[in-house]
């Protein structure tokens, strides 16, 4: 999985490419760090082909954190990924564009 991190001030954009599963989720978690001082978090998941519960858990904990300090958006999810979000009810509280 490729992770691209772009931070401008308190604006953080993470571009994820590939598979987000049990083995790759810890890498993303490391990249995100503590999210200290971030007010706007954007995940560009154009290249994300696969997400499992490990990835979902990560999004959940990020969303919880960002709800306190700002906002989080998930952009460019493909049909398969959107499907997973729907089935699990994540589309109810994630901001998906």
């Amino acid at each position, binding site marked *: 999985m490729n992770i691209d991190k772009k931070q401008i001030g308190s604006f953080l954009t993470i571009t994820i490419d590939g598979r987000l*599963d*049990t*083995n790759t989720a810890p890498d993303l978690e490391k990249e995100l760090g503590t999210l200290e001082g971030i007010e706007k978090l954007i995940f560009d998941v154009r290249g994300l082909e*696969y997400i*499992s*519960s*490990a990835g*979902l*858990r990560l999004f*959940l*904990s990020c*969303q*919880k954190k960002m*709800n306190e300090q700002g906002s989080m958006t998930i952009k460019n999810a493909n049909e*398969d990924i959107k499907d*997973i979000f729907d*089935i*699990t*009810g*994540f589309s*109810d*509280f994630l901001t998906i564009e």
Partner: protein
Amino acid sequence: MVGGKQLENIKKMFKEFKSIFVSEDLLKENEQHANIVTAATMLNVFWLCIIVWILTYSEVFKIEMEIMNSMTIRAFILLAIPACICYLKRGNGKLIKHVLFICFTIMMGMADALLKYNVTLAMVLPIILSARYYNKNFTLGIATLTTIVFCTSAFMSVNVGQQDLNSYNLIIPQNTQIVVDGTLRDAVIEIKVDETQRLKNIFIHLFLPKFFLFNIVAFACVQIARSGKKMVERQKEITEKGKRIETELNIASLIQKNMLPSIFPPFPEHKEIDLYASMTPAKEIGGDFYDMFLIDDNHLAICIADVSGKGVPASLVMMISKILIKNVTLIDAEIDTALTRVNKMLCDGNKTDMFVTCWFGILDLRDGKLEFANAGHNPPLIYSNKKNSFEYLRSKPNMVLAGFDTTSYIKHETYIEPGDKVFLYTDGVVEATNEENKLYGEKRLQDFLNEHSSLGSEETIKTLKKDIDKFVGKAEQFDDITMLELIYKARKDDNIVQKEFKAEVNELSNVQSFVETELSKYNIANEIINHINLAVEEIFVNIANYAYKDKNGNCLLTIQNDEDKIIKLVFEDNGIPFNPLERPDPDITKSVDEREIGGLGIFITKKLMDDIEYKYEDNKNILIITKNGGN
């Protein structure tokens, strides 16, 4: 030439003479026992001597103490010591017997010399004991030795030891007065008599009668020795015959064992079936048999049979029946006509009243159609995977095989489904009897199979056999015990692949590429493969993280795809029993703050798969997910 013949005669005599000293093989063991008997007798005589010495000392017997002392010492040297040596050597040794008998005979001679008429029987003891050796020549030798010893002792004992007053044939002039100083006996002895006359008396009146009787005893002993030898020889013959028959039975048993299929799995290329069977005869060879063979790639024949009777006769009929059934069926694959023909052939030339019960089935591996016929045999048990129970498959049986040559057999038909089992058995199972004469019975068999329905065929049969043995206990197995189980795992053209993985999270990519590779072979849509792999991740990671705690373990993944594109994945691990389906689903309507992290994986799996099933069997966690790959 004269010299030559003489030499031959001498050699012959020497050989005969030698046989007294060199025991034949045949009688060696017998000789050891006989030596012990002789030693025991000698020791008994010695004890008797001690007893008599004590009685003499306490003046119960009127014998001179000197004589008794002398007797006892000689008895010790000539009886006790040789007897003890013999015991120490356990009767082994070529010369023991000669040492014993020489000492014994000489001792008896001395006893006769010293105690005379008190020990009349002493003379015959050695020769009677010699008969026990069943060696005519030895007995004759002892007879000779005894004669020599007694003549010698009679001669030398004229003036020693106790005196037999009968030897004093007194011719005293009338009115002679005898003065008794000490005992009357001593007084008589001191009377001057004609010594030659006395010797003659001793010889004619005292020695000869005893000697004649001795000869009669000797003759009888020789006869005993000869007939004893004949008996021992016959015994040896019978033992050898028995050993030969035993060897032949063992070989027959091996031949029979090799005739029954004993390599399992018998058809390894057919992964859709699990087949195992065993036959335990009651005697060395049995009359039961089972058979399993492929008629063609799509048809499996299984058969179980029981020949009336046991042992050699039943086994011969068993061999013929088995060969006929297989060969006739391979040519004529219809069960009913095949059995009818086999029956006619068995009836042909069947002069004994033996018959064969048989259950014979042919399974079409493609669709589970089971055609069968029953020739008077026990009804098989069929396990239905759907109902999760074994039921008896009862049908009206036809007449037994080899009964009447006009019997025609009827073909019955039923269908079994993947996961179903067929269990065949013979009388020996349900009629196994314990010490209280209770039978194992149909119900106990059915209950046992139902309780152990998750085991493979080999495990089932082995544990059932143990259960029968436990039930029977110390009672003897009186009938052959034969069992066969067939598990129809999948339809033949369904696909099954299996792979074992280490239960470690970093193996996940290997597991998923295995799944992807296999499923793409069956033209399953990518989207479905992805969904399946999502489920695979959740399940496999769960097992890798929690099943084995800190220990290492494996996970076995089976992928099954049947003709209708129904895909089944089975995950098996030997870890801690855990049912992931027990956790309640996460509430997905909760707000983000209230949402919990756990339970998502299984929830995703349940949503994406058509069916998910968990069971714990055989010490394994088994999780099965099913997805229709066609839509």
